[in-house]
């Protein structure tokens, strides 16, 4: 079973939605990450401030970055799965790599 060819996929009408959602979530997380880096560069001593339960800002923000990544990943997966079910009629994301694909459709050019 492990060495059979990959399964042929169906059309993915949700590709556009997933791309847009992914980019938005990436942008949001990037801002949160950039904020962490910026605070460390601009006001590093503020990271010493106790925020909650004796934990300082550095620990809370650091753990927050890790936990936020997981929460956003779950939201993203749930949204994509729901959209795939609605548009493709399957939960497993079966898709065709070409139809509905808006990212690799440029003409093939011959290289060197």
């Amino acid at each position, binding site marked *: 079973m492990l060495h059979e060819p990959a399964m042929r996929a169906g059309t993915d009408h949700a590709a556009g939605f997933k791309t847009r959602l992914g980019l938005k979530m990436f942008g949001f997380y990037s801002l949160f990450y950039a904020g962490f880096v910026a605070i460390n560069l601009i006001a590093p001593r503020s990271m010493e401030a106790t925020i909650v339960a004796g934990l300082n800002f550095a620990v809370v923000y650091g753990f927050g970055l890790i936990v936020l990544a997981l929460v956003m990943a779950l939201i993203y997966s749930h949204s994509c799965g729901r959209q795939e079910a609605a548009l493709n009629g399957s939960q497993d*994301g079966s898709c065709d790599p070409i139809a509905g694909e808006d990212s*690799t459709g440029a003409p093939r050019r011959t290289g060197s």
Partner: protein
Amino acid sequence: MTITIFLLFVASVLFLSFYLGRRVKSSGGYYAAGGQIHWGVNGVAFAGDYLSAASFLGICGMIATAGYDGFLYSIGFLAGWVVALFVVAEPLKRMGKYTLADAVDLRFDSRAIKLAAAVGTLIISICYLIPQMVGAGVLIEPLLNLPHYVGVISVGAVVIAIVATAGMTSTTYVQFIKGALLIVFSFALVIAVCVRGISTTPDQGGDVPFYEYGTALVSELGGSVVGDPVAAGGLDFVKVTTSGRDSWWLEVEPGLLREIQWETRTADGQRLVNGEPEVLGVNELRQVGGVVSIAGRSGPQADTGPISPFRMLALLSDRETLVQLWKTARIEDGQDIVTVHYPTLVAGNELMRPGMLFRVEGSILEKLDFLSLMLALFLGTAALPHILIRYYTVPSPAAARKSTIVAIAAIGTFYILTLFMGLGAMLNQTINPLTDNMSAPLLAKSFGPFLFAAISAIAFATVLGTVAGLIVAASGAVAHDIMDRFAGLRLTEKAKVRAGKLAAVGVGVVAIVLGILFRGMNVSFLVGLAFAIAASANLPSILAIIFWRKTTWQGITASMVVGVTSAVVLILLSPTMWPKYGLLAQDAPFPLMNPGIVSIPLSFLTIIVVSLLTWKAPSAPEAVAAREPDARKLAVAGGS
């Protein structure tokens, strides 16, 4: 018992590998495990692949010796998965087959891209391999009492056996087992640390008596100071002769000396530890670390007993908590070379925020260095060849997405645990002053032989799993990209697998040699550099091929070449490498230790400029063809 458990574990891994290897006949099976791995298994295998020696040994060691700064690597390594999930995972799964070159070359069929991508993959893989092999040697030394190079060769041999037998299939299951065990046993270790609590007189569960480093006046030592104080590491050290025996001390203030540890390499090649010949198990450097004051309290009454993880962090963040961070400096004493190991006291509020290692309050250049590191860690994950090829082992883009989420959950959990393991090693004085990479296994050793054996075996498997993934990626670059597609050798399925196996042996041998040469460097730091190279070489091309229609094969090729070249050259010209050439670090032509802030934007700029210069609007038939499925793309999706 330690060695038995360890050897049993390695034997089990090899058995699994040979068992699975019997079933691999096709190149699809060898390079991508047939594209039929379940997303849950693949997700944990992602964790097993990604949580390398850098994550386990390096980060824990760095946290143990530099506090929160080591945790920055955990944050950056995990944040990088956001880029992988939201931007790269599904498109790459749709476009690729076995290697990164398959994906970025999909629209062009360019020999230049194939070659650039393959060479880039090889360089990144080898840079990433070095710290893994260094970590392997570090593990074997205390576990089996064997020299560092034996550890490196052992790992190399086992990994070559794994990869050369079954390629990605066995690699996947080795990574799955290792990833799962790593998280479970790390949890166990953190629980043990919390149950033991914090003490200013740690004795490793009664196994190692607490050693208190004394302070004395010169007159109290009954000896005499030899010569003038010697400056090293910004402090003064003095040599005292007492009854014909020399000892080295840290001069706290004139006449007042603090006890330290030191090694002497004599002119005739003898190695002395604290003035006596080194004898394993009898006269070795004592493990270091320790907390002097817990929120202003010290002595037995300050012991916390069992505490919660959050309480531990709160106490360590207190400005009245004082911890000992040990530093090292070299002194020339006539024809002898003396290496002194001495404690510095750091307050908790400084320990638990960035600043001990990365000088965020320093000069502009030091701030830029920090920014450069965080940028490379964030952007590097989604560009690592051995991570990218794991997207080809699952059957669909949705499975790629789901496996990435499992990976984020597993990896995120582990990275939170690293903070407690690193701090636990510091609190329990289980840091080897010669290499911080062993902090986590030595912490486990302080809880008894079983946990030590289990953690060491898992750490060894950590190296195995990651090295195996890297060698699969590198062998794919050589056999599939260069030999089959670039050189046009048109290999049969069987020949392609054989070529991959031979390439695996070759890359493995190179890794062994480099692992021996780079002994002693922190493995996380080395991996941070590999991230910078990967982000510079691959990420601009990956993003451009996914999102920008005007991308050309010339742009991709130029970006890959400029990215990898600039990153590698800047590292070679950096303060990290300059001392290795026998020169002063401050004289290095490139002033930053991390090149990403220059090389990543440069690579992006290159692909934009070159693509705009070489792009031509498609003719009508080409535009129509671009909107319709073609046989090749379907074949790629089908993995045939």
